[in-house]
């Protein structure tokens, strides 16, 4: 089978979990001898040759194609809200729009040119790039043969829709995150509209968890029969041995992720206070950056635990591994997490994890403590328990790594192929 896949990023040039998931999926499809044409806005040249990569920046558009006009007509509304930056929190977003409102041009002619250099980032011209990406997709769908179209998240949905328009092949919309996960109830309408249009235009929708599937059904009005669940997997399930030793005598409890509404950092802070009140020999670490960082720093000061609660800022590379390695407990208190790969990384470092019930990963990870994100008492109890009752954490360490070995991308890809086949058959 030949899959025409539209993504937004691909390792090693990634800024989020989307690229990693695409990588795993493509690798899994490779394993089952499926051909993949993978399109990204910008290729860097150092991607692993797992697919027939297409660099959208290199594609020349032939405007004589009549169907393009229709596609373009459908896309023009995107331009109107071109200061939309989806992965920024509201405060950063406001700062950004205050700045950009003064020097934006309403219609950028470069969208109509034959070639267009994508940044492939999540920057200020995102909407322009998304709509241009759709035009490129149409061109590719015309010139490259394929059996099925697969689009990852809303950034690639207009591309998927346009490709389907041209080739008439079935479209799979893959949901890694929805606008409700990113923004809570205060959704960006244009993003929601694109997500909804993509899901409705799709012949089948794939969600990364049951949690996300429910959102797709309830908030986007998609018929349950049209939505399947494909949990993410891990690329490497081996246990990571580390020589890194901590330098402090206290036990370390860690939050590692973006410090934004979606990740629930405030619940971690409140739980930390409850634990420290009972056991002063614990240090809490909040690693990461985000629009709620300063608010968290202030709250920690207000609660008077500044010498026990530390902030590291954004970590990368070896620092991330070191942080997992020296942690005694890892907590992911996400308010809404479609999947959440980080706890699996913690397991690979033999660190016991506490995850919120509102995360997709809770559906696959059995050996973890699961609490409601808002239940800081339960969270504090769980932290205290894992720190003090060696038997539970020992059990988690042993069973967790076994569990990890079952989460393979090959299995995910096998299920995906079935979804492809069924969808093609139906069509």
């Amino acid at each position, binding site marked *: 089978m030949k899959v025409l896949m539209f993504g937004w990023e691909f390792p090693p040039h990634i800024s989020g979990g989307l690229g990693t998931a695409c990588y795993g999926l493509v690798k899994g499809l490779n394993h089952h001898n499926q051909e993949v044409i993978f399109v990204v806005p910008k290729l860097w040249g150092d991607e692993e040759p797992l697919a027939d990569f297409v660099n959208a920046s290199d594609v020349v558009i032939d405007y004589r194609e009549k169907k393009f006009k229709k596609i373009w007509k459908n896309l023009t509304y995107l331009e109107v809200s071109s200061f939309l930056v989806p992965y920024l929190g509201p405060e950063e977003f406001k700062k950004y729009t205050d700045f950009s409102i003064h020097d934006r041009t309403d219609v950028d002619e470069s969208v109509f040119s034959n070639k267009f250099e994508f940044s492939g980032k999540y920057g200020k011209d995102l909407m322009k790039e998304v709509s241009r990406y759709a035009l490129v997709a149409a061109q590719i769908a015309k010139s490259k043969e394929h059996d099925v179209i697969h689009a990852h998240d809303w950034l690639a949905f207009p591309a998927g829709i346009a490709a389907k328009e041209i080739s008439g092949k079935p479209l799979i919309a893959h949901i890694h995150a929805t606008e409700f996960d990113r923004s809570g109830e205060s959704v960006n309408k244009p993003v929601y509209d694109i997500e909804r249009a993509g899901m409705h235009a799709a012949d089948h929708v794939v969600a990364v968890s049951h949690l996300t599937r429910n959102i797709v059904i309830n908030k986007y009005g998609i018929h349950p029969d049209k939505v399947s669940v494909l949990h993410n997997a891990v690329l490497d399930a081996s246990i990571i041995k580390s020589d890194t030793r*901590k*330098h*402090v*005598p206290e036990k370390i409890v860690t939050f590692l992720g973006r410090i934004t509404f979606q990740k629930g950092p405030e619940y971690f802070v409140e739980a930390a206070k409850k634990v420290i009140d009972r056991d002063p020999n614990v*240090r809490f*670490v909040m690693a990461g950056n985000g629009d709620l*960082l*300063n608010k968290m*720093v*202030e709250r*920690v*000061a*207000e609660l*008077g635990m*500044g*010498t*026990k609660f*530390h*902030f*590291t*800022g954004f970590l990368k590379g070896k*620092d991330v591994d*070191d942080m997992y390695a020296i942690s005694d407990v890892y907590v992911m208190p996400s308010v809404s997490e479609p999947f959440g790969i980080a706890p699996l990384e913690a397991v690979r470092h033999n660190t016991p994890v506490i995850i919120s019930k509102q995360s997709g990963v809770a559906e696959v990870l059995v050996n973890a403590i699961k609490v409601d994100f808002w239940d800081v008492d339960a969270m504090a109890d769980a932290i205290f328990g894992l720190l003090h009752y060696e038997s539970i954490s020992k059990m988690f360490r042993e069973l967790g790594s076994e569990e990890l070995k079952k989460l393979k991308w090959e299995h995910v890809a096998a299920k995906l192929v079935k979804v492809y086949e069924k969808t093609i058959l139906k069509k």
Partner: protein
Amino acid sequence: MRTICFYFQVHQPLRIKPYRFFDIGDDHYYWDDYSNKSIIRKVAQKCYLPMNALLLDLIHMHQGRFKVAFSISGVCLDQFEAFAPDVLESFKKLVATGHVEILSETDAHALCSLKSKGEFTRMVGRHAEKIKRHFNGYTPKVFRNTELIYSDKIGGMVAEMGYEGMLTEGAKHILGWKSPNFVYQNSIDPNLKILLKNFQLSDDIAFRFSNKTWPDYPLTTEKFVTWLNVVPKDQEVVNLFMDYETFGEHQWAETGIFEFMKALPSAVLRNTDFDFSTPSEVVKNGTPVAKIHVPTPISWADEERDLTAWLGNDLQNEAFSKLYEMETRVKNIEDEEIQRDWNYLQTSDHFYYMCTKFFSDGHVHSYFSHYDTPYDAFINYMNVLSDFILRVKIKENEMAEAEE
């Protein structure tokens, strides 16, 4: 007596290096030697060396009729000793003329007067020793607290230590209709004379000198002399208190600040009935007019003249209280490095960097801070303090074992 009293604050904090969570328990050296050294060298070239030379000339030229006072923090003296011995030499030369007074203060330019009498007394003692060592046995008689922080209670403690006078801000909300141009007394112990900064005339030089939007720009000695001459005849003393870095650093040499100072003493002595005095001379010769009541502490900072630049938000209060929780424990520890760090961690600037007053209305108050945001300053300081607390604990355990 009609006199002008010049006092300059000389201070540079020992800045903390970027200190990460991963360093806690591992790296026990907190200080940013590179930036501390380069800043001292930079300010030495721009301000300390040229201005000291200028003052020495003026003192010689006017044969002792021109005089000034300095308060040099201990943390700054330590850095002169390490990075700028030439600057220290030039201060020694000035003091040796007999027309330059050195004031007493807390060794680390700390805020301990607000928290602990014991620590305050110890720190003032440590500074006095340093002054004695560097300046040929010199003993200060007048006290100047960090950032001119003053209250009745602090004045009381200073009087108890045997000082004759103390400097503070002529804050409007304290003075009301009264003039700063008199000698006042502490309300607890009237033997302690209080000199108040004339913030109008002081800030004309320190802040407004090069401000082109100021209606009185450019400031000339002629203008300044005219303003001195309209000070009512019964008012005895005009206290001009400012950062020494005003000369060449806050106001660059290009603004003409050095030329202004060079010409000012002659202009004053020729065209007014003012002369120049040091703080201890004003304390001795001035006639105290009244007690001054300052129930809540004041300072010379910002429009509010209060403590909110250092102790105004949760970050600052948390860092400050966690630091001083350590006081009694540190006191009992005999360890040179722990004592050194305890001293330097108390420097007020660390708390100033955590101030969010300016941050919140969008202004970046970055001139005096090497941190991007007050939050960065807090995080860095708390990481260091966490390591410091660990070291104290380890040392305590060692001492307990040794006793057994």
